[in-house]
């Protein structure tokens, strides 16, 4: 337990505290005057209001769109289901920057809709909402659908036999059983959209800013640290509240449900109603998920001299002027950083999960919640905190390449813990005892008994940590050095510059990033079917 606590202390709590202190302490005294001043500012009020309502609207929209899909995945059997499941999961591991770019290619200036009907939705809230739906669709489908698949259909049948109509049976039996899962999924979506950065940064334009974007603007552009510190605190409090509610719903979810093997409840599609539902889900997936990604690839290939790899070739040279190095170098940088970040996240997260398995009590529960914090706390704050906290002895890491993987690992750890914890908890301690009695030393018993059982979960956790590290943007944008950009940083920088070449290169680089993420996801899916409950749904439980 010591290693994770120290890790979080140095690389999370300390930088966050440093930035808050830097903002609110002047001449050695706390200045809370800024608090009221900032919160009283109508512009900031506007940001807070927008952050809140877009998160609520996104969450509502996602639930409406994704609930039918949760049902379809849980209860219906149809050809190509596993492929569709993989497609639905893709967006979740895609970096926000890719999502932003893809929607820009679809809805933005010179985008597909612009070409066809002269319709532009970027710099409107619709682009943000749609991108949020795209991004979080899998959260609802996996969390709710995962439970739904295991609900015993005989419960509903019992209600039908007692005289309830089909809908009434669903409403009175299934919905209440799903309630906590829906609440948990909704809260996670709310958390992700509340702290949305990359998507809003790219699609929002000057008119729309979430708290996270505003923190970035205040720190990186206006250098107004006190305001940024206050906003960080506000976000901290909001995220803390959301996580507390989440923990509460998870505890409530532990009420006994009658669960069965998922395969037991699955039926072939029959009847008009089910066909319509399936059609709706397929159409949603096609329009919301496949179309933006397709357009992204199309734009990347749509070079000035006709379709081809022109933009990809342009990535090979440093002539564009956006970087000191050819943008393609970002691929190697990203892969190296993500690999190191994955190792750190596995080490820290694995130790934390092991510690959480062995102990119980309020302290452990608190630690559990603490591990979730980096998911919601402003990545921008963490990144900026790294810069100002880790820049002098004893911890002068500013010039060190390790800073980027450390920040990325911070975001990866919660996924590792969420994935490993249920599996580790499921390992019967008596299996270890059986090994001990047969002559295995404790270390040998761990290697012989625990490791084979958790190996798959470990791989899944590694895959998620890798994908998350690869796509991390908010913190990396601060600390990646100009000569060593990561893929998302390079994409954002290219988008920030005018000209078709830069735009095309951003599309091409996004496509590469997407392919890398999808490949790591596909490797994941290959090991996944045998490790029940791990992965996205497990990660968000």
């Amino acid at each position: 337990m010591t290693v994770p606590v120290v890790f979080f202390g140095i690389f999370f709590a300390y930088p966050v505290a440093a930035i808050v202190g830097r903002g609110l302490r002047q001449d050695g005294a706390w200045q809370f005057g800024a608090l009221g001043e900032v919160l009283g500012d109508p512009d900031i009020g506007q940001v807070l209001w927008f952050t809140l309502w877009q998160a609520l609207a996104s969450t509502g929209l996602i639930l409406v769109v994704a609930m039918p899909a949760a049902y379809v995945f849980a209860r219906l059997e149809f050809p190509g289901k596993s492929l569709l499941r993989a497609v639905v999961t893709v967006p979740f591991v895609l970096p926000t920057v890719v999502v932003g770019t893809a929607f820009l290619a679809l809805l933005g200036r010179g985008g597909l809709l612009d070409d066809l009907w002269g319709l532009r939705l970027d710099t409107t809230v619709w682009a943000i909402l749609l991108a949020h739906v795209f991004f979080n669709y899998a959260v609802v489908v996996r969390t709710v659908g995962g439970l739904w698949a295991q609900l015993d259909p005989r419960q509903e049948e019992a209600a039908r036999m007692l005289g309830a109509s089909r809908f009434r049976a669903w409403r009175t039996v299934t919905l209440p059983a799903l309630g906590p899962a829906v609440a948990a999924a909704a809260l996670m979506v709310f958390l992700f959209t509340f702290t949305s950065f990359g998507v809003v940064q790219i699609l929002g334009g000057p008119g729309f800013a979430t708290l996270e974007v505003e923190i970035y603007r205040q720190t990186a552009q206006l250098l107004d640290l006190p305001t940024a510190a206050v906003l960080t605190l506000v976000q901290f409090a909001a995220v803390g509240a959301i996580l507390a509610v989440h923990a509460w719903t998870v505890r409530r979810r532990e009420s006994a449900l009658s669960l069965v093997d998922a395969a037991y409840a699955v039926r072939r599609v029959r009847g008009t109603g089910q066909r319509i539902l399936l059609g709706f889900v397929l159409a949603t997936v096609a329009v919301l998920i496949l179309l933006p990604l397709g357009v992204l690839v199309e734009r990347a290939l749509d070079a000035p001299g006709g379709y081809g790899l022109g933009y990809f070739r342009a990535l090979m040279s440093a002539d564009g002027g956006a970087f000191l190095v050819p943008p393609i170098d970002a691929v190697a940088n990203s892969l190296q950083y993500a690999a190191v970040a994955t190792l750190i996240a596995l080490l820290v997260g694995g130790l934390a999960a092991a510690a959480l398995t062995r102990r119980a009590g309020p302290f452990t529960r608190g630690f559990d919640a603490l591990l979730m914090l980096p998911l919601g706390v402003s990545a921008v704050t963490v990144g900026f905190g790294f810069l100002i906290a880790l820049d002098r002895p004893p911890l002068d890491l500013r010039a060190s390449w390790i800073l980027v993987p450390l920040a990325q690992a911070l975001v990866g750890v919660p996924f590792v813990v969420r994935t490993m914890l249920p599996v580790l908890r499921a390992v019967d301690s008596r299996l270890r005892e059986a090994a001990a009695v047969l002559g295995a030393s404790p270390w040998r018993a761990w290697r012989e008994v625990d490791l084979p059982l958790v190996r798959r979960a470990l791989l899944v956790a590694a895959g998620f940590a890798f994908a998350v590290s690869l796509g991390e943007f908010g913190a990396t944008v601060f600390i990646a050095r100009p000569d060593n950009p990561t893929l998302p940083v390079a994409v954002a920088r290219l988008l920030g510059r005018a000209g078709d070449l830069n735009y095309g290169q951003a599309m091409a680089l996004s496509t590469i990033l997407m392919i890398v993420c999808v490949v790591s996801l596909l490797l994941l899916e290959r090991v996944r079917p045998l490790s029940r409950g791990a992965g996205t749904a497990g990660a968000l439980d």
Partner: protein
Amino acid sequence: MAGTPRRSDAPRADAQAERDAATSLGAPLLEIEAASVRFADAAYPALGAVDLRVAVGEIVCVLGPSGSGKSTLLRAVAGLQALDSGRVRLEGRDQAGVPAHRRGVGLMFQDHQLFPQRDVGGNIAFGPRMHGATREEQHTRVAELLRLVGLPGAAGRVVSTLSGGEQQRVALARALAPSPRLLMLDEPLGQLDRSLRERLVIELRELFGTLGTTVLAVTHDQGEAFALADRVVVMREGRIAQSGTPLEVWQRPADAFVARFIGFDNLVAAKVADGVADTPWGKLPVPPGSPHGEREVLVRPTGVRLVEPDRGLACTVAARTFRGTHVSLALDPATGPRLEAACTLREAPAPGAEVGVAFDPDDVVVLG
């Protein structure tokens, strides 16, 4: 089945000789001295100063209800549970500070705890592998043990495809594979169905006889304990209530708890004097040499004899249950608590019938 603790096969005699030799050297294999374990917020200690010795080649069965501390006893011997006080010695060596994997004892877990990710052979080879056996040796040992437990050729099977009885056999083979000096069994037949249990208990006894294995088993099933053990140890609330051969425990339960636990319900308070016990059921004859004074008296169901309605204790038949070999009757006497009687199917009266009851002194036991 119960009450016949005799091993019939020839190798048994060797084991017996070995045991006698060991006993004559005064070196029991396992000695437990004043072992105590107390769990937080428990009403009584899981183990309260328990003393127990197991000789080489002996089969000892600890019998008790759940929560009596019998599993804790096994775990303490295995080194999986630290003692608060007291001592565990194996072959004369104090085991304090010796970790589980160096004690050289085998433990078969209650629900087997087979390693799910390994096949049958991998499970059985685990122990020899931990002890540095070569691949060749492991292979030979696995084949040998699978033959022994009656599953030849099952080495490649996946654990999850095994039936309950097969799992039990594999678990046994796994526990035996490293040749432990003491084999411990925790509810060895607990989850199997009745007929399988009755068959396996005989197989186990034969097997341990052949191998000369020293066994310490725990169970809550008295039939299992009586069929398996050379010696039965009855535990209650962390203490030993009685220790003796199955026949001794069966014939002379130490107290009312033991009597009830092994299935006797005809127990009353009585005043014993001059070969007669004064009970709510009237005056009962007791065997000569019974202790006198305020005592509890047990009447085995076989000692409750049916006589003419107008003679002996007047009773109404409340219920009758067919038990295969006999019929068990629940009788409501005119005075005193309900009585259980055993009779043949032919002489069993119908419920509601009025009967008289007489008591056979050979089946009356004055406790304490």
